[in-house]
């Protein structure tokens, strides 16, 4: 490439699927994800969203940060790091968990894959190798950053299983939720796990970067009759909120990267207290603080789902106990209109007393209307954050 001006140089990374995605991208709706080009949308967020809920959506997840954890004491280390009890997780299983700093504040939450007794892959959104290594002090374990070793596609939607069947993956219907299989197809190594960020039936497919374009091409070839289509992050975001998944930097800040200490949160405050097992044998990072928080009720709030009157999306909106707005309760984080549920939904940081589903509150929403910003004060009700949970997800 010719450099016309010496200090202007494109520097974002391209994922192994970039060539194919770029060919479909005609509105230049790129966004950044861990320093990579990543599609925010292709043409219509709406049709991309319905591909997730109606067909088979394809989203490039190669930019995820990946850490490989192996060594004689890898299992001991992971169990020491995470809040869940690793003894319940067998090899070739993935699991969702939180990991905290010693004061019980969340470093991150995400999926860890267990391939063998002492062989793990941790997917993360934020850089933290230095911290994982600090936490590994005293363990015989190797942690390495392996982000570029794999290319991945997330195949999500009710038709995703049909696509994989057509792809030639025999027995895919027997893969349980969070199960992992590895196989050879056309002489190429392929790993499939049944997980995702949509709360729907879905899989993640991983290949070596050199085989990325083969995977993409084959998938779209066999998926043509199964309503396959690529999606961007904006469509995924709606499905994510419907499914009740939290997102770093939006619903919370990592304890390592929070500028304001008030944005550091515990698993209990984020409504993922179920990932914390205080009874698992031995110590894990943050156990003392989490135990104290649970026993003494020290959580400042809990991230709860809310359903809101009307249809104005309400991100960053204040909630009140009364219509006059005299008693402030909390603030919303993620919010959207749910096209499947036909409901206006959001997550809100609320005092525990208001988190019981059905509790009525008021919410102040500021929204754009033509060329100005208007305010409305409407009712909302606490709800289970997992707004959408179709049986096919785990069937």
């Amino acid at each position, binding site marked *: 490439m010719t450099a016309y001006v010496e*200090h202007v140089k494109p520097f974002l990374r391209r994922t192994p699927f970039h060539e194919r995605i770029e060919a479909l991208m005609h509105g230049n709706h790129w966004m950044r994800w861990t*320093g990579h080009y990543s599609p925010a949308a292709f043409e219509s967020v709406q049709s991309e969203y319905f591909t997730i809920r109606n067909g088979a959506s394809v989203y490039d997840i190669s930019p995820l940060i990946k850490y490989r954890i192996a060594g004689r004491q890898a299992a001991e280390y992971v169990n020491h790091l995470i809040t869940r009890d690793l003894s319940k997780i067998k090899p070739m299983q993935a699991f969702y968990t939180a990991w905290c700093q010693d*004061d019980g504040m969340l470093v991150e939450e995400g999926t860890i894959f267990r391939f063998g007794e002492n062989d793990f892959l941790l997917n993360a959104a934020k850089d933290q190798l230095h911290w994982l290594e600090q936490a590994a002090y005293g363990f015989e374990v190797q942690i390495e950053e392996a982000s570029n070793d794999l290319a991945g596609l997330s195949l999500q939607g009710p038709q995703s299983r049909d696509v994989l069947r057509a792809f030639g993956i025999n027995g895919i219907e027997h893969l349980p939720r969070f199960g992992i299989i590895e196989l050879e197809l056309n002489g190429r190594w392929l790993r499939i796990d049944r997980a995702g960020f949509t709360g729907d039936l879905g899989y993640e497919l991983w290949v070596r970067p050199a085989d990325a374009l083969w995977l993409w091409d084959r998938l779209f070839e066999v998926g043509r009759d199964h309503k396959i289509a690529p999606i961007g992050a904006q469509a995924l975001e709606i499905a994510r909120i419907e499914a009740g998944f939290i997102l770093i930097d939006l619903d919370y800040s990592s304890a390592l990267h929070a*500028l304001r*200490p008030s944005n550091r949160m515990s698993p209990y405050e984020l409504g993922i207290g179920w990932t914390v097992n205080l009874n698992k044998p031995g110590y894990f990072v943050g156990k003392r603080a989490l135990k104290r928080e649970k026993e003494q009720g020290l959580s400042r709030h809990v991230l709860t789902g809310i359903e809101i009157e009307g249809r104005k999306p309400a991100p960053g909106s204040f909630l009140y106990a009364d219509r006059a707005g005299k008693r402030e309760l909390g603030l919303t984080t993620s919010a959207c209109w749910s096209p499947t549920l036909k409901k206006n939904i959001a997550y809100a940081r609320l005092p525990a007393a208001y988190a019981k589903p059905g509790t009525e509150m008021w919410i102040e929403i500021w929204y754009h209307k033509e060329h100005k910003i208007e305010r409305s004060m409407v009712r909302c009700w606490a709800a289970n954050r997992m707004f959408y949970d179709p049986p096919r997800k785990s069937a």
Partner: protein
Amino acid sequence: MVTIAAAGAPRSFSSFHTGLAMQQSYDAIIIGGGHNGLTCAAYLAKGGEKNGKSKLKVLVLERREKVGGAAMSEEKFPGFIYSTCSYVCSLLRPEIFRFLDLPRHGLQVIPYDINSAPNPEGEGIIYYNDHDRTRESLRRHSIRDAEAYDEYAMEISRHCRFIKRTLLMTPPDPTQINPFVQNRINPWGHREDLDGLLRIGREFGRLGERHMYDMIRFWSMSVADFLDQYFETPRWKGLAAASSIIGTALGPYSPGTAYVLLHHYMGEVDGQIGAWGFARGGMGSVSKAIAAAAEEAGVEIRVNAEVEKVIVKGGKAVGVALKSGEEVYAKAIVSNADPKRTYLKLVDKGDLDSIDPDIHRYARNYKIRGSSGKLNIALDGLPEFAGLGKEAAYGTIDIGGDFDYIERAFDDYKYGSWSKQPFLDCVIPTTVDPTMAPPGKHFMSVFVQYVPYQLAEGPWTPEMKAQYEKDVLDTIELHAPGFKKLVLHVQCRTPWDIENEVGMTEGNIFHGELTLDQLLFNRPFPGMGQYRGPFDNFYMCGSGTHPGGGVMGAPGANAAREMLKDFKRGVVQ
């Protein structure tokens, strides 16, 4: 604590209003037309207008033939404008920009976003304002360092957010917690001290346990210890440490250097904390704009008017005696000179001792060691730096190495010589600014660390200076092969030259070291951290007062605010 034990009764400030016996032609005289003196003058004239009161008559007296002090643009070689001393801008407070309407007076600051360290033995290190770009660049050296970078940047941001609030604030004096301590110097003491402490305490409380510990450690740590907590690549750590030794007579292993790092990060350009920019037309544009704002507000500026002595009568500062023999009187005298120059040269020892003999001792022992030199270079073209792409020339280029390289440079200095292989902070403003050199030609500013004020053998000689210049140019050549062929002209300056030209004692760019013992309410001296000097009607407004050095303007604005309070002219924010 040692309060300034004034002899006799607590002093009264009524003299402002009753008037003195002798003739007074001005409300305030400011000694020194550096950027803080000008800012103070402009604030006094602009702020004093409030509440229907008549405008204050303010006079600025400048020794040299033009104002600006160390923020100066000069044509030292035909067609080339040099920023002769300070060379980049970030710390100048946005509040001052706005209050004095500096853009209307011609000031334009253009941010740049590259900072790099060349490497003659391999790949250099480069980082950008863009997070992803920096990560991409760092991971080529160490994945661990790239991963730790965010957490490090957050810690720095937290410290900046905390300290930013104190910049335009008179530093509260914690000794005033004791209700029986009498603040003899600041009539508004007590109450404001307690208010200020409460404000800072509240901010501190918001940090949360973990960050409170971090902050307390940070203020006294060495930059090496601080960076070792996060990073492993020696060259990267050396680059990150650059800001902590600039202008400081300490090495990277010396305690207290971590804070100096922060001092260079707490500035901003357009709200972007830590960003640095070039003033269009060189740093003289900053002084020029502030001077224009001051003159518009009615300030009188006299150049070629060197003040020889402050005239003190009965414990009150009443005027100044110029070198020409002329005496000028005013209700208040403000010194923009550094504390040492002020109390050891401008003020009579007898006058000081009659108030408190300790002050002379404080002034003698005030740490204001000259440690940096400067080379201003006219170039025939843009140099290329070893191990870096061409874009490196568009930002700061830090020539150095690891901690040991910098510490060795410091060792030379410690024993009375310039660093044979110095640390160099270079910028080429003409990559961005089209007004400072002919098209295709460039001006390069080279800040040299470490250079002593006096050599072990004695004062600087022309031969020594030539050798020092050669060592610097050789060091650049090593990191930018072919550089010497581009050189058209060099202006070489030692701390001694800077002192003689600008007047800053030992050429110390901060008017005194930025170590914890000389910061906040202890800057410049214990009990005198609130811009008031030991005499009645005597004030300090230079970088030797809180919040310290750099082209910030905050000391000048803060001093003016305190004076307006004493003048009962209301408060300017």
